[in-house]
């Protein structure tokens, strides 16, 4: 019984550690979550994804 509890505690600690490491490694100062960008961190927030649109005159 004690071993099962020990394993559960260890698993919870490991999961929390992985979550923290992933979050910390992907962010940093000034991270912006508002921008619809493919970057996982936008330092100076100028970022923004722009659609590239095939010009209609190519098909005229």
């Amino acid at each position, binding site marked *: 019984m004690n071993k099962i509890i020990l394993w559960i505690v260890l698993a919870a600690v490991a999961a929390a550690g992985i979550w923290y490491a992933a979050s910390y490694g992907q962010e940093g100062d000034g991270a912006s979550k508002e921008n619809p960008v493919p970057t996982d961190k936008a330092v100076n927030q100028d970022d923004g994804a722009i659609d590239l649109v095939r*010009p209609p005159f190519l098909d005229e």
Partner: protein
Amino acid sequence: MKRYFCQMFAVICIFGALVVAPSVASALTVTGTFPADKAGMAAYVKLDPLTETNFDNAKASLFDSVESFGETYMIGLKEYSVDGPNYNKLNFRIYLGTNGWLVVYLLKDQEPSRIVNWRRDAATGKFVSLSDTLLKFAIENAISKIGAPAVTSVEYYNFAYPDAKKMTLTRENIYNGEPITDDFTVLVPGTLYLASYALASIGGAQNTWSEAVGAYIDNKKINGIGDIPFIYGNYLAADFTAGVSHTIRLDKRNDDYPASIVTMLFYSVN
């Protein structure tokens, strides 16, 4: 005899349908007036049909020189400053069509990151927003010079990468007095077609250092700046890959001059 002629007629019709018609269609496509095979990064707008006065205005006050023209279009060259002062120039090509299309573009072999506008706010010294690209600046300038009504937005396209559906510009700035090194991570989803960079060192050239600013991806050197303020290039495809988090780092030698790296990504999300 009549049957023979009918058979011949049928053969000619089939030949025409299979060989001649596609050739004619192809010829019509490739003889379009915009040089899509030579163009690279571009911005465009659709205006009202352009008049002779618009074209006269373009020749008189917009184009530095006319590269080519026809009955329905004109392409001219125009030099713009990349940062405001009268040095550090960039030539754009500007296409005007009688049907109202206005396209400002770089050539295919020019790095797309050359559209970064390095102007800075006079009061704060900060770089202007990445969305205020030189292409946008040139489009607005061209519209004004030819005497057409202003537009509210421009569209972007990269003729060199027609499958790319998205473009993102992301930057790292280090201003005076800030720590002399900083980094950020980038993860591009889907398919990455090109990653281009622009590197700036404003005033670092006044120092005697051989390299005032250095840029790195995953600790591998991308490029460095010595005695010129701006350099441009493309990341190696092997260094910048989709689906992997990459760290872009900017280093300076001292904290008394601003530096910046802008990364421009062309990709499509699957």
